[in-house]
């Protein structure tokens, strides 16, 4: 079984979802950005509060309390499901069933940040992220939430042009996906590497063993177009 970072979640309808939980590096960087933003907000508020004297001090303490405990909650329940730092890193907080995060779960996971903070600056949280497969810190465990990457990385470009060709034999789903993935990389790889990969798929192209590399590439690109449902224009 190949090692992967995926987390399998099942919806009530019995559909298996593959979530991609985020680990230490992304979340530490997201935290650093959020910490900077909170620090900046607190600085601005204390400038304003400084003018107001005694009342300002009370206001400042309330602002500090709200920033510390509810800054993440407000953003997690918003549209993006993530604080600005997490959004910058492409992260999102979801329930571990894949559903959007609920109010209760968001409050619980952020109250338990205090436990993850112990004994010093999120040391417990960092250890949990290093030792668990699903990268849940203590707050995530208690609330049943997961921090996931929102978007997949795409290395695909547009497929290079080629006349559609039927493959030499029936292709399984995995084979079709592999050929389309190969074709999509055409603009990104060196021609030599592109052709080298095409050689691996020679049986599908249905060319004789002596055929030139360029012909093979072209033929296989045609198969990719065919798999995607493109057909020769009707005359």
């Amino acid at each position, binding site marked *: 079984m*190949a*090692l*992967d*970072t*995926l987390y399998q979640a099942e919806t009530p309808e019995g559909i298996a979802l593959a979530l*991609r*939980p*985020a*680990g*230490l*590096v*992304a979340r*530490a*960087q997201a935290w650093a950005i959020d910490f900077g933003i909170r620090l900046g907000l607190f600085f601005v508020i204390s400038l304003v509060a400084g003018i107001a004297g005694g009342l300002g001090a009370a206001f400042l303490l309330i602002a500090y309390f709200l920033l510390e405990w509810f800054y993440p909650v407000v953003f997690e329940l918003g549209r993006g499901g993530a604080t600005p730092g997490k959004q910058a*890193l*492409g992260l999102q907080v979801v329930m571990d069933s894949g559903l959007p995060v609920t109010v209760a779960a968001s409050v619980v996971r952020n109250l338990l940040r205090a436990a993850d903070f*112990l*004994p*010093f*600056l*999120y*040391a*417990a949280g*960092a*250890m949990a*992220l*290093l*030792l668990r*497969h699903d*990268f849940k810190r203590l707050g995530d465990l208690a609330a049943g939430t997961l921090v996931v*990457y929102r978007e*997949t*990385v*795409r*290395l695909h470009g547009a497929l290079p042009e080629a006349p559609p060709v039927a493959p030499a034999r029936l292709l*399984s789903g*995995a*084979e079709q*996906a*592999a050929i389309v*993935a*190969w074709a999509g*990389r055409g603009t*990104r*790889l060196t021609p030599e*590497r592109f052709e080298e*990969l095409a050689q*691996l*798929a020679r*049986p*599908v192209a249905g060319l004789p063993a002596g055929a030139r590399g360029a012909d093979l590439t072209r033929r296989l690109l045609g198969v990719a177009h065919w798999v995607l449902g493109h057909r020769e224009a009707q005359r």
Partner: protein
Amino acid sequence: MRVDAIALQLRPRTMAEAADLGVLLVQRHVRSLARTWAPVYAAVALLALATIELGAWVPGLVIFWCKPWLDRTILFVLSRAVFGDATSAADLWRQRRSIWRGDLLRTLTLRRLSPWRSYTQPVAQLEGQSGAARRRRRAQLLRGRRGAAAGVHAVYAHVELVLVTGVLALAVWLAPEGSHRSVLAWLGRGGTLSNGLVISATYAAIVLVLEPFYVASGFAMYLNRRVELEAWDVEQEFRRALA
């Protein structure tokens, strides 16, 4: 090099996500690391701690300075782990010349100063490149990924600091009632032999745990870069599905 034998699911990932995959690789192969990395590191750490009488900061500096050399042992284990192979002390001993003696001068000087050494380490150690070829290869890996590689390095450097402080803070917390203040003052008072030893030993213990994760994250990022540059994920799929 058989790409289809790689026991990792290759697909395009961000560098941070690739670093997560490295964490899983360490979790999966913790036994191999305990058999090989732990004894090697224990020997170095004990030697380093023996220098405590030269100054309270010397053991920490020795361990810190030897890290690129120590990382070579970890990367050897991980380079086999990627194919699902376990590593025993005997495997390590057979390869001791290339692992411990190879590229020694550079490892202990320039590599120590590199802000992304775990990411570029496979170029020298696994690809066996040297000279101009290595410089070109490294530049190719780093192009457009310099920030991400340095970012991962920075995260692990900070986590190390946090964990060392965390363990010391825990010691203060668990001190007998009423003595917290004096324990804290004792830890903060520099220069004495005993507190220097406690702090150095704590640092040594954290490096034992954290260094494999750091090296594995860099290695997984290196593999991810080869997915980007050479479409290793497509090769893996082709060889599995079509061969």
